[in-house]
Each structure stands twice: as structure tokens, then as C-alpha cells.
């Protein structure tokens, strides 16, 4: 199905199943521990051997000798595989750095070997018997150093042209602006730190391999595993029915899947592999640190006349920038603009996408800078944002947003949160020992169209089954797909069987970039349209005026049960949604507003988040239950990045020092108060037939700025170096009375 004109009225508009709060259909399996994750396919695979991955102890250089003899002689060991005996390996299209190192080493904890043994304990012990000699080379680990000579990098929505993005004459307008700020912010490297480690189980059958893994994008992983192993795609099958979190870390093929396949081939046995937690931060990808400079110039009434956002980040050779300045092209008005991103080559582990890449660190800086500018103008920060709203792409004024209710988000949030009680003068509200402040930020992220396919079956038993390689990484895909098929075929979501995450199913959008829910359900919609036609044809109905409702198929005064239609043998509808044109004619984006109240301990500087509210405008909300959870989860991650998350770089040895869950701090229960979310009632007919857009990352965009602004409002101390840990403002806090 080609989507090239705005969606008209369609069966989804009925909203008898879609749009209604629905608990997760996979919930009963998850809460009873019966949902099988990658390492747990005991039912399908009997007595697999255990693989233990060994990582490089240096960040850059060469392995001069790798002696496996002691490991091979250890009890229970079946095989040891290193680059020397792995055979020729390719590199995946989506990998910047190869997944098995040696003899050259590209980064710390790059996999250099797998030890396969009868038991986990034996594999782990034998891994310690590898004798590795390295010749260490000088690496580049300092972003500040690297940015001194970094080149301009492309990225973002304007493609990959390595140039500054300019509108008007920024320098002139900024020079003439009566009110202006010029501020620099830094954000550190972040780790996805998903709860389920990278894990895979590989089974060879002749020259074919079947791999259960934990991956967000089955088609990408499938293609890249085949490419890495030098095999035709038809001989590789990838399955991820349950994924224990990803946040971008599992977008790509990772070493666990490759090493499981290599280990199983060498051991001539099924092999399962889970990456040890302390290896994850350096072995896999991370969100790169940024150095950002923001300049805003405005007239005295608060009209922005000049805005510049520049960001620098680092990555391995061949990598890409963290596109932290990209949102500034579209978020606020202003006729003179400059956007630029620079990329330094570093030998730290591979940087790549983490939830809301670009906006997450970019809006931590931009939304705090907007707060600084509002204060300088003597304006309320909500009013300043509203004043600079734009309904068109500032670079192409004839290109409108398909729907943009940022102002309503800000106004609704301000009213519900009690924003009018905020004191503009920082440090002026106390509650016992607590300095109390409120902060606001806009939320903004583009919606992306992705081709997405699905197959829907109506069985001879009347059961509806959806098959697509879409994944559910906690996002609620199982449920919204059941709701979509249920709405289209007139049955409750509970009666739809949903099968996900298998490379033998039609290729979907996958889970990433907040493009999963809207595109994958649109693909299911397209397949259901095909199935509806097949049902109508079998029943001898004119497909143009058929309705599917409450288990019945009706056309004019004729009616039959959906079950009856299946009785003559299974009917199958398969199709994909494809997009053309509308996202060029219109800017399709999602919007929101974050409101946060914090308390800062006036004695210790400890920050406690007291209240949080997000108001979101993201098209039709398919399932308010799981959409709300996506938003509160993102708000939680935003609290983490503002207050605690930081991969600390050891610039001597080129690695992230705090590579486990004790030292890489993420929010825990005690850090997070009750959170509120409001969805504006929307349906975006330019987006897709579902009239839905992304929501999973919107909740993270801006929330860090809102927390930071609340801290400033509480203390009067502006920290521009994230995370805002207490030692950065303690000395400057107001005197304790």
C-alpha cells in the first residue's frame, strides 16, 4: 500500500479497539517469568554448550600472541575461537567497528575470543587461562583535544552533506541583537544499560544457522549476520520474540550473535552466549559525549532574531556524529540561523544511537539555554517559548508542519502543573531544608516514515494471526498490533495471535527512532486491507462497502461471521506500507512540554525530583497504557542523564571506567516520584493510515532541560556540565540561614 495522499476516513477511526487503554497481551507471560528471552530457549534447544566472550585488555594496538593451549586443556572446554581460526569475516553494514578483534584491536573490550565449554562455570574459568600478549599503540581518547581539529560533519534530516546549515545572516543578526546569550554546555557519554545483557543462542543445521538473539531490528541483524559470516541470507534465521530492553543498543548486530554462531560451528553443538555485564559498556555502543555552543539573539520583546547551535562529538573512524544540534533547525522561529556539527576521530568504543539520538543531549543544552535567555529577557520561560513558536519549517517557510500543538502542550502543562506558583527569582522558595524550584522545557522530535510489512492470516478455525518481524522491546508492539488487527477485522485484541521478531516473517520498520509503533501498525493495517478483500471475495461481497464489526462481516443487508469466512480454508493478507511525498511536503514531528519540580538539599546539594508532568501531542495514541509507559520511562531516563549518568573516560587507557551497574548510576525507585502524562487528542492524517506518530523518544527530549531549569530555579546556580552532580553546585548554594 502506497501512502502518498493524506489518509481519509478509514476503519481505524472507529476506535473501538485502537485508542482504548489495553493491558499488554504479553503481560501474563512476562509477570510469571514464562516469556522466553534469547538465552532461555530450553524448549527449542536441548543442552546447549556455553560460550564466554573475552574482551581486549587494551584500547588500541595489536595482539602479538594469543595462546589458547591452557584454555583448550581446561576441564569441559569444547572449543576456543579467535580471529585466527574464525575464518574470513565480513563487517556488517550497520557496524562501524568489527565485532571480533585481532590481531588489530580497535577498542577496549572488543571481543577477541570465545571459549566454549560444557558448563558456564567451566567456560568462564577457562576464559581466564587465555594468555594474550599485546603491543599497545597510542590512541585518541580526549574529545576536547579531538575537537580542536575536528571537521564539519553532516547528519540530521538534511542528509549527509558536511556543511554548516545556514539561514539568513546569523553573525550580523546576532551582532545587532539587543539581548543575547552565548553559552557552552557539555554532555557525557551515556550507556544504554538495558537490563537484559546482549545474548544469543546459535544452532547450526547443516550449512544453515538459526540464532535466537536480543535485537531491535531483525532485518538489519539478519543481513549483517549473514554478511559477517559470509553466508547467503537464506541460510541465516534470526529470532527475537522478547527483547529485554534496547534503547538503541540492540539496533545492530553485536558480538554475542557472531560469537555464538562461530562458537557453535566450532563446537558442533548449539551454543549460547551472554555478554558479562562488566563488558557491555565498552564492548558495545554508547551515546557519544557532546560539547555544544548555543547563541541566541532576540529583540527586547523576546522575538528570536538569531539562533546558532553547534555541537561536537567523537567516534571511531568511519563513524557518525551525535546530531545534537539537529532539532534546532525546526524547534523555534528566527530568521537568521546557524547549525553545525563536528566530528572528531576517537579510539573509544563505537558511538552510536541511544534513545532520541541528537535530541536527548541536544535539548539538554538548548532547553537550558532557552531558560537562560528567558531570564535575561525578563520573560516567563513558557511565554518565551510560545512567542517563538513556528508553524512552518524556518528554513522553508512554505513547508508547514503537518500538525504542531507545541503551544497547547505548554499551556495545558502550565495550567495542570500550577506553573503560576513558580517564583521567577531563583532561590526564593524554601520547604524546610529544601530549596524548591520549577522548570519547563519543550519536547520535540521528528516522526519518521519507514516501510513496514506484515502478514495476517484468518485460520479455518477463525483465529486471526499476525506475523511480522517487528520487535517488542517493552514498547507494547504485541498489544498495539493486536489492537490494529482487531479494529480492522472486527474482533477484540485478545482474539488476535501476534507473532513477532522472526526473520522468516515480513520485514517491518523494527524498533528504533520512535518509528516502530506507527509504521509497524500501518504495515499491519495494509495487510489487513488485503485480508478484508480476500474475506469479502470469499463471501461474495462487494469489498468497497464491507464492514467488520463484533465478529461479523456485513455488506448491505448481508452478513456472515468472520469465522465462517475462514471455514473454507485459511485466508492470508500480506502487504507493506510504503511512503512517498507527504513527509517532503510537510514536516511531520511530535511535540510536548515537560514540567518538573525539584528540591535541592540546602546543606548537601542533593537533588530530589518531586513532581513531573509531560504533555504530549503525537498524533493518535494507539494504546494509552503502553504509550504512557513509554513516556514515563523516557522521563526517568531523562532524570538519569541530568542527575547521574556519565561514562567516565580513562584518557590514559582509553576506556569507560565505570562499566557496570554499580558504578554507572541509573535512576532507581527512590529517585522517581509519581509521574503524570497527558496526551492531547490528535490524529495526523499526513503521517499514515493509523494517523499515529512516534511517542517512545519524545518523552526523553527536553526533560533533562526541564530538570536542570528546575534546579536553577531552586538554587540560582547554573551548571552547564552534565550530569548535575552535587559537587558542581554545592559551593555556590545560597548560605544556609
Amino acid at each position, binding site marked *: 500500500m502506497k501512502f502518498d495522499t493524506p489518509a481519509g476516513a478509514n476503519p481505524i477511526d472507529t476506535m473501538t479497539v485502537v485508542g482504548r487503554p489495553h*493491558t499488554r497481551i504479553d503481560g*501474563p507471560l*512476562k*509477570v*510469571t*517469568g514464562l516469556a522466553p*528471552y534469547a*538465552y*532461555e530457549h530450553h524448549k527449542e534447544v536441548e543442552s546447549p554448550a556455553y560460550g564466554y566472550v*573475552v574482551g*581486549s*585488555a587494551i584500547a588500541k594496538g595489536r595482539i602479538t600472541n594469543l*595462546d589458547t593451549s*591452557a584454555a583448550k*586443556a581446561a*576441564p569441559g572446554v569444547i572449543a576456543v575461537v579467535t580471529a585466527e581460526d574464525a575464518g574470513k569475516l565480513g563487517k556488517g553494514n550497520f557496524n562501524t567497528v568489527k565485532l571480533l578483534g585481532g590481531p588489530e584491536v580497535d577498542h577496549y573490550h572488543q571481543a*577477541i*575470543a570465545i571459549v566454549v565449554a560444557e*558448563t*558456564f*562455570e567451566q567456560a568462564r*574459568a577457562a*576464559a*581466564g*587461562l587465555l*594468555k*594474550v*600478549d*599485546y603491543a*599497545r*599503540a*597510542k590512541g585518541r581518547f580526549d574529545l576536547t583535544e579531538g575537537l580542536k581539529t575536528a571537521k564539519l560533519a553532516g547528519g540530521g534530516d538534511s542528509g549527509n552533506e558536511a556543511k554548516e546549515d545556514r539561514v539568513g545572516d546569523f553573525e550580523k543578526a546576532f551582532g545587532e541583537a539587543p539581548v543575547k546569550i552565548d553559552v557552552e554546555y557539555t554532555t557525557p557519554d551515556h550507556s544504554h544499560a*538495558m*537490563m*537484559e*545483557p546482549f545474548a544469543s543462542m546459535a544452532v547450526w543445521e547443516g550449512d544453515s544457522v538459526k540464532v535466537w538473539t536480543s535485537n531491535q531490528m531483525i532485518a538489519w541483524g539478519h543481513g549483517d549476520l549473514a554478511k559477517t559470516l559470509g553466508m547467503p541470507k537464506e541460510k541465516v534465521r534470526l529470532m527475537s520474540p*522478547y*527483547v*529485554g*530492553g534496547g534503547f538503541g543498543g540492540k539496533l545492530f548486530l553485536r558480538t554475542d550473535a557472531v560469537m555464538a554462531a562461530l562458537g557453535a560451528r566450532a563446537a558442533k553443538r548449539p551454543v549460547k552466549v*551472554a555478554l558479562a*555485564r562488566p*563488558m557491555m559498556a565498552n564492548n558495545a555502543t554508547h551515546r557519544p559525549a557532546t560539547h555544544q555552543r548555543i547563541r541566541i539573539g532576540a529583540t527586547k520583546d523576546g522575538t528570536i532574531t538569531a539562533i546558532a547551535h553547534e555541537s561536537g562529538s567523537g567516534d571511531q573512524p568511519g563513524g557518525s556524529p551525535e546530531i545534537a544540534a539537529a532539532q534546532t533547525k525546526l524547534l523555534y522561529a528566527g530568521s537568521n540561523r546557524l547549525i553545525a556539527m563536528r566530528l572528531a576521530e576517537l579510539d573509544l568504543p563505537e558511538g552510536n544511537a541511544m534513545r532520541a539520538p541528537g535530541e536527548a543531549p541536544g535539548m539538554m543544552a538548548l532547553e537550558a539555554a532557552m531558560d537562560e535567555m528567558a531570564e535575561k529577557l525578563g520573560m516567563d520561560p513558557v511565554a518565551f517559548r510560545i512567542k517563538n513558536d513556528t508553524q512552518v519549517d524556518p528554513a522553508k517557510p512554505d513547508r508547514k508542519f503537518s500538525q504542531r500543538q507545541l503551544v497547547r502542550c505548554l499551556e495545558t502543562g502550565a495550567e495542570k502543573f500550577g506553573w503560576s506558583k513558580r517564583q521567577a527569582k531563583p532561590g526564593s522558595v524554601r520547604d524546610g531544608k529544601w530549596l524548591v524550584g520549577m522548570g519547563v522545557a519543550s519536547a520535540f522530535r521528528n516522526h519518521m516514515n519507514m516501510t513496514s510489512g506484515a502478514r495476517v492470516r484468518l485460520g479455518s478455525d477463525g483465529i486471526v494471526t499476525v506475523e511480522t518481524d517487528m520487535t517488542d*522491546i*517493552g514498547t*507494547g508492539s504485541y498489544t498495539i498490533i493486536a489492537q490494529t488487527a482487531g479494529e480492522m477485522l472486527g474482533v477484540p485484541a485478545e482474539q488476535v495471535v501476534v507473532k513477532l521478531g522472526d526473520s522468516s516473517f515480513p520485514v517491518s520498520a523494527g524498533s528504533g527512532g520512535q518509528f516502530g509503533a506507527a509504521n509497524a501498525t500501518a504495515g499491519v493495517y495494509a495487510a489487513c486491507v488485503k485480508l478484508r478483500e480476500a474475506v469479502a471475495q470469499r463471501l461474495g461481497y462487494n469489498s468497497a462497502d464491507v464492514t467488520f464489526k463484533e465478529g461479523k462481516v456485513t455488506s448491505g443487508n448481508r452478513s456472515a461471521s468472520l469465522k465462517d469466512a475462514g471455514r473454507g480454508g485459511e485466508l492470508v493478507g500480506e502487504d507493506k506500507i510504503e511512503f512517498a511525498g507527504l513527509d517532503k511536503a510537510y514536516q511531520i514531528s511530535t511535540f510536548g512540554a515537560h514540567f518538573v519540580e525539584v528540591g535541592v538539599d540546602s546543606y548537601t546539594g542533593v537533588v530530589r525530583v518531586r513532581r513531573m508532568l509531560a504533555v504530549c501531542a503525537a498524533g493518535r495514541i494507539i494504546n494509552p497504557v*503502553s504509550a504512557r*509507559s513509554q513516556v514515563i520511562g523516557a522521563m*526517568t*531516563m531523562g532524570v538519569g542523564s541530568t542527575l547521574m549518568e556519565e561514562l567516565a573516560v580513562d584518557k590514559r587507557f582509553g576506556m569507560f571506567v565505570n562499566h*557496570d*551497574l*554499580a558504578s554507572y548510576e*541509573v535512576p*532507581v*525507585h527512590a529517585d*522517581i*516520584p*509519581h*509521574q503524570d502524562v497527558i496526551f492531547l487528542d490528535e490524529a495526523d492524517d499526513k503521517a499514515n493510515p493509523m494517523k499515529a506518530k512516534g511517542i517512545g523518544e519524545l518523552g526523553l527530549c527536553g526533560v533533562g532541560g526541564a530538570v536542570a531549569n528546575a534546579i536553577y530555579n531552586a538554587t540560582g546556580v547554573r551548571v552547564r556540565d552534565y550530569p548535575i552532580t552535587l559537587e558542581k553546585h554545592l559551593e555556590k548554594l545560597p548560605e544556609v540561614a
Partner: protein
Amino acid sequence: MGSAATAAAAGTAPLVAQGTSPSPAPINLPVKMKVNGKPRELKLDPRTTLLDALREHLQLTGTKKGCDHGQCGACTVIVNGKRINSCLSLAVMHEGDEVTTIEGLGTPDKLHPMQAAFIKHDGYQCGYCTPGQICSAVAVLDEIKRGVPSHAQADLTAAPGATGEEMRERMSGNICRCGAYSNIAEAMADVAGASA
């Protein structure tokens, strides 16, 4: 660290001196315990954690391995009525113990009230930390009932209540990276008959 220098270093994960000759095959030790009410007898490598005994030997994979270092709480099970991180405990230390895992709390057809509350309040997303959260939540409400004190109490000698603050403090050893905390608090409050 010049390029000429040669560093000899072992693979990074295991804490074993490299190049030493391998030790002889370990002798498996017997252990008997009751798991979810059923007597189980195992012969295990003494290095096997309770977590791996459950997951790999009894194939009760509801108990999750998130970190294997006692940092995340995904492996929480209830042993003799108290919650522990099963990754920090060797299986052979549990002779005669009664172990309850997520599978022992309830099944899809017969959910434990806490499991039902997690579904109702959407107290999860990816589901990987969920069994540990639920085992912890059940044990936390029991701790509060038994008067076990916590850091959140102003008065350690007073009886703790099922307040939002109390539950959040006691649940803080169970990390949920999806960030379902607000909903988990609602689920626990629902079961405790309190407000989050």
C-alpha cells in the same frame, strides 16, 4: 605508553592468573532444596550460583540474570521467606532451603495478586527486570508487615507503614531501565491497600 611497549595482559573478565596450569575437573556436590514447593535434588559444580542452578539446571528461567554481580536485582528470589539476590549466593549453600521463584508465585491462569497488579498498572515494559521486581515487591510488603526497619524511617523503632517513600526505598535494589517505577509503586500500593 609508547607503541614499542609490550603489555602482557590477560583477557579482561576472569580473575585468574594467566598461564597457570588448569585445575582438575571439579567434583560436583549434591544439594537438596525445595523449589516452589517441590523437592529438588541436584549435583552441581560448587561454583554454580543459585541463579544458574535455577535457570540452567532446573530451567526456571523466570529468574533473570541482569548483571550477575548483585547490582541490579533482576535475580531476586525468596529464600525461606526473605528476598535475596540469587546471583550472589552459591547453590550448594542452600541445602534444605525453601526457594520461591516467580514461577512459584503464580501462573497465567492463577496470578498472584502482585502479578495481577503489575499487569493492571503496567508496572513493566521489556519485562526483564519484572520477575525480580515482583518477588521483591511481595517480600517488601511482608517486611513492612513484619516491622523490618528501613533507611526511609524517621524512627527506626516505630512500625513502618506501606507508604510510597517506604516502598520506593526498599525497592531501590531492583533497577528498571525502562523506567516503570511510577507504575510499580502504583501496583504495590494497590496490593498493600495504600496510596503510592
